[in-house]
């Protein structure tokens, strides 16, 4: 099927518009989801670190590390929490959830310092680590690693759903505009063929007599124009005017 020039231009316009919508909403989505999820996860991690810090005081003071380990193992089940570790006041690790072992980056870091840090751990991923002091830091601190990969995955999922929705609307729009443009482009094409036929009657006809009849019977602007052309053509023949 030959695509009318008019439709091609319309489609290009729609494509541009949807592209702009998709890009701008995706950028907004990335920004919003990233910010909100990061804030939410960080707040949750901080609350978890605080909870563990509060409940582990007696356990640490009693040197009961297996109960301490049981405690942090339970929190690891929470979505987004990738690792936990507890250090004593000297920064020595008392319990952790790392397999196959504590990453070198963490061993090399200042574990006594209490701050929210971004960590890139080869073999593990990228994390935001929050910490909470135990007994105001004199008994150590709890550190919770939040998986940034999960946030990225959630963003990807949100964008994927959005792109899917926009693509569906885009395809429906293309189909709708094809129908609509075709409604206008087809009679115009016939009108063109009719005008050519009037201008050069000897040339091969591109429009059948039935189509000419239907064209002249139309009540819209195309029919009106066809009738004007026929009238002008008839007047030219009467006055003997010729190009």
């Amino acid at each position, binding site marked *: 099927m030959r695509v009318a020039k008019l439709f091609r231009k319309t489609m290009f316009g729609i494509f541009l518009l949807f592209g702009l919508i998709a890009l701008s909403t995706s950028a907004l989505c990335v920004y919003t989801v990233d910010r909100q999820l990061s804030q939410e996860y960080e707040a949750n991690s901080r609350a978890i670190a605080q909870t563990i810090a509060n409940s582990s005081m007696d356990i640490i003071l009693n040197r*009961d590390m297996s109960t301490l380990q*049981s405690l942090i193992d339970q929190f690891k089940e929470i979505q987004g929490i990738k690792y936990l570790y507890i250090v004593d006041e000297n920064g020595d690790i008392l319990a952790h*959830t790392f*397999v*196959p072992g504590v990453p070198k980056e963490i061993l090399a870091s200042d574990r006594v310092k209490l701050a929210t840090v971004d960590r890139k751990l080869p073999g593990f991923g990228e994390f935001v680590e929050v910490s909470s002091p135990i007994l105001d830091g004199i008994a150590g601190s709890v550190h919770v690693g939040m998986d940034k990969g999960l946030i990225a995955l959630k963003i990807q999922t949100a964008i994927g759903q959005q792109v899917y929705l926009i693509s569906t609307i885009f395809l429906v729009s293309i189909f709708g505009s094809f129908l609509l443009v075709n409604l206008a482009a087809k009679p115009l094409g016939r009108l063109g063929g009719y005008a050519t036929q009037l201008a050069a009657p000897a040339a091969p006809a591109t429009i059948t007599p039935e189509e000419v009849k239907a064209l002249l019977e139309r009540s819209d602007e195309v029919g009106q124009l066809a009738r004007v052309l026929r009238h002008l053509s008839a007047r030219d023949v009467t006055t003997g005017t010729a190009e």
Partner: protein
Amino acid sequence: MTRFLRMAVPGPGLALVLSSLLLGAGTSDQPATGGQFAEGVTDRQIVVGMSAPFKGASRSLGIELYRGSMAYLSEVNRAGGIHGRTIELKAYNDGYQPDQAIKNTLKLMQEDKVFLLFDYVGTPTVTRVLPLLKKYDKLHFRLFFPFTGAQPQREPPYDRLAVNLRASYRQETAGLVDNFLAIGRSRIAVFYQADAYGRSGWVGVREALASHNLKIVGEATYTRGTKYTESLDRQVAMLQEVKPDAIISVGAYAACAAFIRDARKAGLTVPIANVSFVGSESMLELLVAANKADGREYTGNLVNSQVVPSYENPNVPVVKEYLALMDKHQPSTPAGLADADYKPLRYSFVSLEGFLNAKLLVEVLKRMGAHPERAKIADTVAGIEGFELGMGRPISFTAQRNQGSDAIYYTTVEDGRFVPIRDWKAWRK
């Protein structure tokens, strides 16, 4: 009020309600004794409950512990039981998973209404069950002889809720550290299960080294439930990097055998010591099969600490008894819990421990007399002093001390079996 009770509880029910009110029974925390005997006790039976792995990567531990206990209990039951009552061991599979262990315990306490809990397996499971026992403290449930050397059930606030027979992991790891240091192996690394059990062993090693002003030179962990078929190359590489003189391994047999296999393949030939929980024979079985399959030597330089004497030594009275009763009864796995592909071990350290547990349990129940009550368990256990279980070392408990034995035995592999270590100098650096 009488009229109301008559309407609500017609006939004989009234007498029951009134007697319950008068006796103060029937509160939500109190067991409904429902007769002349305590819960879990009838005129012909005492029911005790067990939760352990009977399926999965650690199934051998639960199965063999159960079989060892059943070898002794079968003999006691056959002879008429205790004060005319046989002992039924009701077992459930927890797959070595803490949440399932809690569910099983609740079932044993609330539905099966067992008299006491017995032969639980594992630190991560037991440490999660202990708070449950504390919650139902008024029911006086006690956990007898858990198959773990962890500290929580040996120290307040849970020490009075459990009764231990075996020595602790602290004692086992301290012994291993001391022996390695004595032969010049001071760079000690730890390979351990990433959970409460592994941490318990890790702490033992850490504290033992700290008493010599030393530190763990390196550590690597694995996830509970790791199978023998999995690769532990990353853990091996981590420990190889720190150039240890010896490695103390705190895990279960499948993962520990896989670690030894991968370590030896990588050229890490230093002594690797495992603690008693590992399931020595199951580990050895995997390594011997690997020896044959690969043509390599995987069973050299292995040390295993045990909390029971070697079953290769029939001169120990209880070992002689164990060997005879295991052969006589050939206990099977609990009904409905057996995996078709599991081949029971004829003898093992784990089943010997189960045997000893059952023997001491029977002694406790005997001492409780014809009318055993849970509330009297603690006093009965505390009264055991110098009891000869047949290990050659008397067993004693007090109100403050809930661990019967401090005995540690060290073994190594020779000719495809575990034998007592006669001289540690063989591994001198």
